[in-house]
């Protein structure tokens, strides 16, 4: 096994193309399973009634938004350290999906907060950090959009993502601090319902589905980016004729 073999754009382009259908089917199947668990297996919560079922989206979405950011930071670090162009493309391909999950986590958080706390938005540390994470995602994509030269865009975006990755835990900590200072009692979404095993299983299934979906979508984007960057090479010309 040669790692450089898979790092070659042409090889990766073909490999990603083979994987996309499997990933998509897997994501669909697991989503169906997750939805079944969320609505038909998981029992009604005695405290929150049916509203708690939002957790099956909210928690996986929040997880994903943070994981995707970390994965992007990882690829950017690799890119800056070893000057591998493919890793920057991975970061570019992941960002929009990360932002989507970030938005969904905020949206579902608000919809959950309303019946539980009577307000769409409370200064919960988790939600506020999530909002700032969304700002980071938007900033990164805006920076990419503003830079015409792909090479400069790759590396400038990578630096920003890494600065953000160092900053995110500090932001989370500071917001939590601010929260306890101003709120008195800290309200925590995760603590509310006691974690039953079925709930955990449901959330995990949904999270894995989200992962497969993310990888599939990112692969499609990476393929597009590779084709665009490598369009002068022979294999890309061939691939374009086939497409």
């Amino acid at each position, binding site marked *: 096994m040669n790692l450089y073999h898979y790092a070659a754009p042409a090889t990766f382009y073909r490999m990603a193309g083979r994987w996309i259908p499997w990933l998509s089917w897997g994501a669909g199947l697991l989503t169906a399973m997750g939805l079944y668990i969320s609505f038909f297996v998981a029992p009604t919560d005695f405290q929150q009634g*049916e509203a708690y079922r*939002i957790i099956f989206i909210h928690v996986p979405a929040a997880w994903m938004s943070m994981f995707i950011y970390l994965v992007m930071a990882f690829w950017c670090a690799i890119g800056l350290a070893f000057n591998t162009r493919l890793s920057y493309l991975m970061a570019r391909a992941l960002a929009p999906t990360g932002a989507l999950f970030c938005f969904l986590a905020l949206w579902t958080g608000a*919809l959950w907060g309303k019946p539980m706390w009577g307000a769409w938005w409370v200064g919960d540390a988790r939600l506020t950090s999530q909002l700032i994470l969304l700002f980071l995602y938007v900033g990164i994509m805006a920076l990419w959009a503003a830079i015409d030269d792909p090479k400069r865009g790759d590396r400038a975006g990578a630096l920003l993502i890494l600065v953000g990755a160092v900053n995110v835990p500090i932001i989370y900590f500071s917001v939590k601090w601010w929260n306890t200072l101003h709120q008195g009692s800290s309200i925590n979404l995760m603590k509310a319902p006691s974690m039953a095993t079925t709930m955990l299983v449901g959330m995990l299934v949904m999270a894995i589905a989200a992962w497969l979906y993310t990888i599939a979508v990112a692969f499609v984007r990476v393929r*597009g980016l590779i*084709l*665009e960057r490598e*369009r002068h090479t022979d294999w890309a010309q061939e691939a374009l004729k086939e497409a």
Partner: protein
Amino acid sequence: MMWQSGAEFWSMGGYGLYVWGSFGVTALGVILEVWLLRRGQRSLVNRLQRMQRWEAQ
């Protein structure tokens, strides 16, 4: 089976707006992303093919 009827399922114990609001917007977001992606990919391939033909001349 914990839902006695379809109506009960949709009302979600009075929280229907919030629960379906969450799941609905999530579905919408995913569908939108996939749709945009497919459209973007198709136009990208078209553009690259046009450029290829133009450069071949």
